[in-house]
């Protein structure tokens, strides 16, 4: 049943990438436990606007855990403490009356802050542009049932493909590595017969781009998979390493 709680928020405010940021403290009363975390921030922003103060900038769009636009470090965890959810799916019923909640942006070298809680994740798009595709043009493709793909393989590819590109993996990693994100795409496409042909080339190009953009090295801490809202598995990283080795051997 819905209840109301009072909370204290410590929110990171930062004008832009170059400015120094700081925490601001806000108190909110009577927050329905049925509201979502972002709806709670909406309420805070409405209040700030009413007081003629600048609202807090944060990213969001679908608010149902699929677009990957929301971010936020909540009490030290990307997308909050609860597993398998994005920030937009987190509800206030997971908090208690009187809680103090710290909200920060993704902190990672490759994701500069734009304002407050909003960061630039353009680096992930650049990695995809380096090779996250099968090189096929529109039209002239064979019948969809021409290549049978076993259900197991299709399901495994699907599991890897559920990555929403949110950036929590790199934000969670002490090295700031994007390996989980990269490996998810490399795995999905390497598993499927359509994508196998380019698998080695793709792995090499994407990893090179990742390094170039300032992401750190993977030292297998596993923090990424623990915090990933879509439960992308570490086994993808193992597959990426295999593809990458193959590519190196061919060189």
């Amino acid at each position, binding site marked *: 049943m*819905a209840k109301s709680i009072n909370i204290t928020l410590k929110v990171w405010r930062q004008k832009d990438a170059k400015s120094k940021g700081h925490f601001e403290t806000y108190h909110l009363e009577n927050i329905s436990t049925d509201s979502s975390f972002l709806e709670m921030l909406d309420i805070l922003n409405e209040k700030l606007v009413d007081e003629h103060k600048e609202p807090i900038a944060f990213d969001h769009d679908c608010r149902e855990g699929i677009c990957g636009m929301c971010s936020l470090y909540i009490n030290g965890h990307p997308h909050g403490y609860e597993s398998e959810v994005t920030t937009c799916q987190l509800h206030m019923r997971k908090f208690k009356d009187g809680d103090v909640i710290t909200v920060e942006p993704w902190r990672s070298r490759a994701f500069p802050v734009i304002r407050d809680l909003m960061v630039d994740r353009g680096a992930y798009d650049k990695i995809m542009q380096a090779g996250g595709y099968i090189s096929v043009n529109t039209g002239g493709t064979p019948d969809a049932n021409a290549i049978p793909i076993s259900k197991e393989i299709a399901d495994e590819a699907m599991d890897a493909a559920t990555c929403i590109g949110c950036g929590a993996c790199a934000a969670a990693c002490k090295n700031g590595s994007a390996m989980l994100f990269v490996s998810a795409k490399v795995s999905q496409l390497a598993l499927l017969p359509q994508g196998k042909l380019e698998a080695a080339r793709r792995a090499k190009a994407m990893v090179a781009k990742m390094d170039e953009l300032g992401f750190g090295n993977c030292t297998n801490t596993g923090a990424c998979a623990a915090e990933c809202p879509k439960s992308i598995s570490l086994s993808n990283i193992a597959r990426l390493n295999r593809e990458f080795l193959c590519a190196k051997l061919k060189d």
Partner: protein
Amino acid sequence: MSTIDSKIPKGPLAEKWTNYKNTQKLVNPANKRRLDIIVIGTGLAGASAAATLGELGFNVLNFCMQDSPRRAHSIAAQGGINAAKNYQNDGDSIYRLFYDTIKGGDYRAREANVYRLAEVSNNIIDQCVAQGVPFAREYGGTLANRSFGGAQVSRTFYAKGQTGQQLLLGAYSALSRQIQKGSVKEYTRREVLDIVLIDGRARGVIVRNMTNGKIERYAAHAVVMATGGYGNAYFLSTNAMHSNGSVAIQAYRKGAYFANPCYVQIHPTCIPVHGDYQSKLTLMSESLRNDGRIWVPKKKEDAEAIRAGKLKPTQIKEEDRDYYLERRYPAFGNLVPRDVASRAAKERCDAGYGVAPSGLAVYLDFSEAINRLGKDAIKAKYGNLFQMYEKIADENPYETPMMIYPAIHYTMGGIWVDYELQTSIPGLFAIGECNFSDHGANRLGASALMQGLADGYFVLPYTIQNYLSDQIQVPRFSVDTPEFEEAERSVVEKENRILNIQGHRTVDSIHKDLGHIMWEYVGMGRTKESLETAIEKLKDLKKEFWSNVYVPGKVEDLNIELGKALRLADFIEIGELIAHDALNRNESCGGHFREEYQTPEGEALRQDEEYSYVSCWKYTGEGSAPELLKEPLDYEFTERKTRNYKN
């Protein structure tokens, strides 16, 4: 009076598209490089079009509001995409998909467009598989299908409950490849605020950079809008927070006709409203109706006890449950089209049988399917949807039925386009949900993804060449022309006007008022009186906005409230258009239900003699009523019938 030329090719239905392609004009490869095309939007329609046009060799400028093209609203589509592959050998065909779509649209769509859509549907599936979209498969390795409302065959392809995501990631991968090649330039976190016309042709856009508020100008030989639907005019909808109708309204103000604005789809299975702080509604995919059964208590006392929290749904005996869809529509049962299912839910709730404390909910129950197939099978099919439901509603749908209620979901209406997907402004094209073209008065499930990708991969890349072929002599444009100056000036003036109001209402509080007016008076059941009330109330609301909104901050800055205010101003105009159109259409058809026009059993009653036309609204200036132009809908190949889902 202007006349409407829909440019439908001659010949038998099944040959029109082929005839068109055989005789249309093309642009040769060397000339393509010299032609610039602006594509606004990176949803299924925009991303597929931008990628394909880039592959063909055009120079493409692609815009989106999100921080990455992959996050467009299409990503949220759950259930699936239709195609006439007939892989299940259950009697499907291009003709049957065409027919179901026409009938599902309550005979208010253009035959030629719909036939073409059905025709290219099969290519879409081939294309997506080639891109690596991991569609669900059978153990034998072939593609799996499921059924959706309004069809008696299984023609829906799906990737778990994340079909839109996988299709969009496919299109995004093709787009990324073109960005890498340099044929597409991507502009993210950009909001298009106006379309620039030069000598009556669309030649560019005025854009607000959402990270710093700076105004930017871009020119091109043609402009394609792929900006999605305007459902957020109702404030609460299943659409993403940034979905909007602003580019459509700017195009309308510049002379593009707005067609059938009143055809708004209300989806029957959404998580009910639960608080006034709520920012959006969440859809529970229609695919759930394959295995879920919809019911309310048979006895009013039971419904009352449930509302008061004294009784649980699982305590209601089988014989005391009213599976009202199965009762009213034995042939289609739980799989009737959306408009029919939504109205039936409203009818039961209005009659006092609704559940949830508000009385505005019905049950979607999986217990029978779980008993028959096992929990694991249900989990494999709908696991992510069940998880999503549990997160929001805090109830376990494996153990207790889901509670659902209809919500605004999709807009069939939109910018008018001809057969070539060109609007009434030369050089301005509209694709995907933002155009009005293929779904008539009601869209069938899994057909929006089909239409978005059909437009973007297989239709526009052909038809736009027919326009561009005589533009090859036109040199690249400068953005320093008086037309760009003027467009930018008026955009900045509007921004300043809004900022200078310095009133007492937040943007969201006015948007919520708009939503209430729209849902109350222009929602699921409309009457002449309710629509007239809406029009009055909207006038007042418009005044309230322009005199009492408060937007903090500066114009030239990252200013989220200003962006929302600009969109809200346009939503209010869309609201007015919807109400006007609904008032004009004295009939019930598809998603447009006028209570005066129904059969004794409560089914929609069309008035074919008078209303078999597309309503095209033409802007006539600030404060003056729009002009109505009619595109007659002649049904050459199908016989118009009363829709019947009973037997």
